[in-house]
């Protein structure tokens, strides 16, 4: 966005108080009315902002400080690259360091601050982007690709300049609605939940990480707003309607009043749903369904309990690796698990081993992003190549297993060999614990996440060696349909009920039943009201979902019969088009449960 444009717009709004309504995708329910806080995305699109001539010296000093701090950071990173394989990375860092120590470059930037009276971040960004575009023009591919290096140097400098402002999100003192082009998992994890009342982003889709985190924290969120950050200027009131997928910029008094009422009604509805908390998740014809919660942080365990969840079906453990300078210790892991397990005592807590990589990787630690991270070194693959880290986690899970009913789950398994390898390492860790006479549950259940087409297609083999399956629909859909769920240009192609996806899910359910092992569904699909009847009809009896959705899903389960569900599943599995299936499911859900919509 251009804050310059925004500033101009601000003047216009000042004169006319123009209210603007933007439509996006609702990804987390609720309504937020708060002051907007715009935060820069990681690719730092820096607006041109003019400064007073008297402020120029300050900005020039900021440029110098940023060069120094970025240089120090880089020198340290460079020193950390010790092995022979890392030599190439070390070389690259050396080149970047050379740029950061290039007085000529620094002078070009400070000259720009001086001559144009612009901010340090704008001068850095404009200069380096100009240099990068010069590289990109060179015909020689080898040289033109070096533009990427310049962008990396730009990011590193901007991190120093803008990074300070990002602390705003950590050190908030008043309620805000966060507005951003896109949010990284790290940024979202940094939010102080007490003050962030809503989230609105330009990019993203229903299953983007922002959406998942927002839902699990119970923060209203709207994504895919395209150019919201260009429309809005920070500090003004914004309404985020996470039910209808609307964001209202500069709302007038009447609109604010209407929304305050609506927000109150919505909260009351929430309370009504909470009232069914004590009632079982049972269909009208008496089929008992188990509802578990997906959590990201230990303190969400309480939310699951409040919402009536009967355990944790997916405990994501990546948070332990985000927001910290060093790797978590065994004790860090243990404390996080013990805290959650104690909340649930003898009810299941399924801990998923770390799923780092791809969108969730702490990218700043990495120099060269993988060209295709979703098909790269992520998740279990990453663990199997970083055994010390993996074993530390397994050790602490095993230690926590004596405190309650802990289960282990391995993510992104693509072949029986991988699952066997992971189990072998677990057994190594068990032997270590035996030798040290440390207690653990020797019969701990070990499960496999089915989230790749290869795992779904070989489920019968995988089932021989697993105590349970959990279907991770998000990745399964992404890998089956080859759609990046966070890319708004193709996110409409992403669908839980594409016939291809449903066939894979059906195979997995049938294979799990044949092998008589446990089965649950833990992807976002399980928290979509219109898919519940289908899942039950396909034979799912355990569902793990985002905690705030538990009451609503329970209400649906309590209003249907398994017979209805079986009929729905039968009809759907006979259909060949995604569009037909979705509209059928929408109609059915509306007829059977008019109150759910």
């Amino acid at each position, binding site marked *: 966005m251009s804050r310059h444009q925004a500033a101009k717009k601000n003047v216009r709004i000042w004169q006319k108080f123009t209210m603007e309504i933007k439509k996006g995708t609702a990804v987390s329910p609720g309504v937020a009315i708060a002051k907007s806080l715009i935060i820069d995305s990681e690719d730092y699109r820096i607006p041109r902002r003019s400064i007073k001539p008297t402020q120029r010296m300050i900005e020039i000093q900021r440029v110098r400080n940023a060069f120094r701090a970025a240089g120090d950071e880089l020198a340290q990173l460079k020193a950390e690259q010790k092995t022979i394989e890392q030599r190439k990375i070390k*070389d*690259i860092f*050396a*080149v970047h360091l*050379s*740029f950061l120590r*290039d*007085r*000529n*470059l620094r002078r*070009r930037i400070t000259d720009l601050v001086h001559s144009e009276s612009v901010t340090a971040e704008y001068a850095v960004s404009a200069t380096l982007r100009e*240099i990068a575009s*010069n*590289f990109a023009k*060179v015909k*020689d591919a*080898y*040289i033109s690709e*070096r533009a990427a*290096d310049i962008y990396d140097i730009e990011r590193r400098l901007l991190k120093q300049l803008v990074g300070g402002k990002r602390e705003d999100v950590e050190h908030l003192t008043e309620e805000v609605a966060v507005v951003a082009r896109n949010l990284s998992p790290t940024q979202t994890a940094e939010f102080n939940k007490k003050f962030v009342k809503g989230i609105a982003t330009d990019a993203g889709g229903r299953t983007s990480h922002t959406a998942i985190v927002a839902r699990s924290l119970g923060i209203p969120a709207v994504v895919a707003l395209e150019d919201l950050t260009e429309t809005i200027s920070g500090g003004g009131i914004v309404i985020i309607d996470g039910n209808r997928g609307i964001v209202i910029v500069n709302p007038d008094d009447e609109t604010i009043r209407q929304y305050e009422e609506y927000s109150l009604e919505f909260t009351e509805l929430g309370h009504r749903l909470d009232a069914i908390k004590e009632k079982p998740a049972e269909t009208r014809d008496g089929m008992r369904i188990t509802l578990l919660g997906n959590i990201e942080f230990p303190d969400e365990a309480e939310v699951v309990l409040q919402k009536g969840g009967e355990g944790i079906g997916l405990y994501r453990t990546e948070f332990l690796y985000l927001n910290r300078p060093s790797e978590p210790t065994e004790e860090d892991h243990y404390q996080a698990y013990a805290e959650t397990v104690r909340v649930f005592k003898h009810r299941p807590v399924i801990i998923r081993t770390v799923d780092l990589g791809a969108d969730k990787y702490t990218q700043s630690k990495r120099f060269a992003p993988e060209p295709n991270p979703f098909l790269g070194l992520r998740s279990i693959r990453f663990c199997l190549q970083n055994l010390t880290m993996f074993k530390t986690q397994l050790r602490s899970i095993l230690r926590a297993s004596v405190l309650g009913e802990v289960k282990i789950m391995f993510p992104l398994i693509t072949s029986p060999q991988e699952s066997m390898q992971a189990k072998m390492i677990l057994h190594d860790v068990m032997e270590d614990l035996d030798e040290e006479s440390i207690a653990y549950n020797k019969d701990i259940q070990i499960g496999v996440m089915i989230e790749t087409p290869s795992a779904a297609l070989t489920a019968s083999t995988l089932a021989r060696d697993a105590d349970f399956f959990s279907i991770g629909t998000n990745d399964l859909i992404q890998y089956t349909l080859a759609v990046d769920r966070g890319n708004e240009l193709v996110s409409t192609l992403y669908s839980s009920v594409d016939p291809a996806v449903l066939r894979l899910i059906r195979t997995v359910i049938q294979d799990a039943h044949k092998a008589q092992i446990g089965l649950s569904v833990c992807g976002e699909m399980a928290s979509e009201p219109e898919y519940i009847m289908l899942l039950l009809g396909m034979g799912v009896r355990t569902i793990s979902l985002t905690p705030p959705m538990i009451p609503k899903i329970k209400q649906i389960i309590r209003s249907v019969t398994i017979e209805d569900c079986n009929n729905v599943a039968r009809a759907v599995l006979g259909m060949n088009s995604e569009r037909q299936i979705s509209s059928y499911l929408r109609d059915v859900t509306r007829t059977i449960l008019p109150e759910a919509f």
Partner: protein
Amino acid sequence: MRAEENTLEKVVCETGVEIKNADGLHMRPAMQFVDVANKFECDIMVSNDENSVDGKSIMQMSMLAATCGTKLKIKAEGADAQQAINALQELVEEKHFDEPTPSGQKER
């Protein structure tokens, strides 16, 4: 240091070099060039047909975008100009930045 003392006694040296490594003057060679250049007190200018840049600035050097076969002129001005020219010429034409040359690759 001598240069500072005898500012009037300006040594100017010039030479032409040809980039011989296959990948051209990309980032790492540019860094090596700048590292060597910065060891000397003298001013160093490097030029191709169009531009003349500061041989001590990696930004400017890498923007020359000199590919394999490009001919560059190096001009040094200052007390240690001759040593600088010698060192840089050796780096570009003899060591060719410790990288393979096109003919070297063909032999393999």
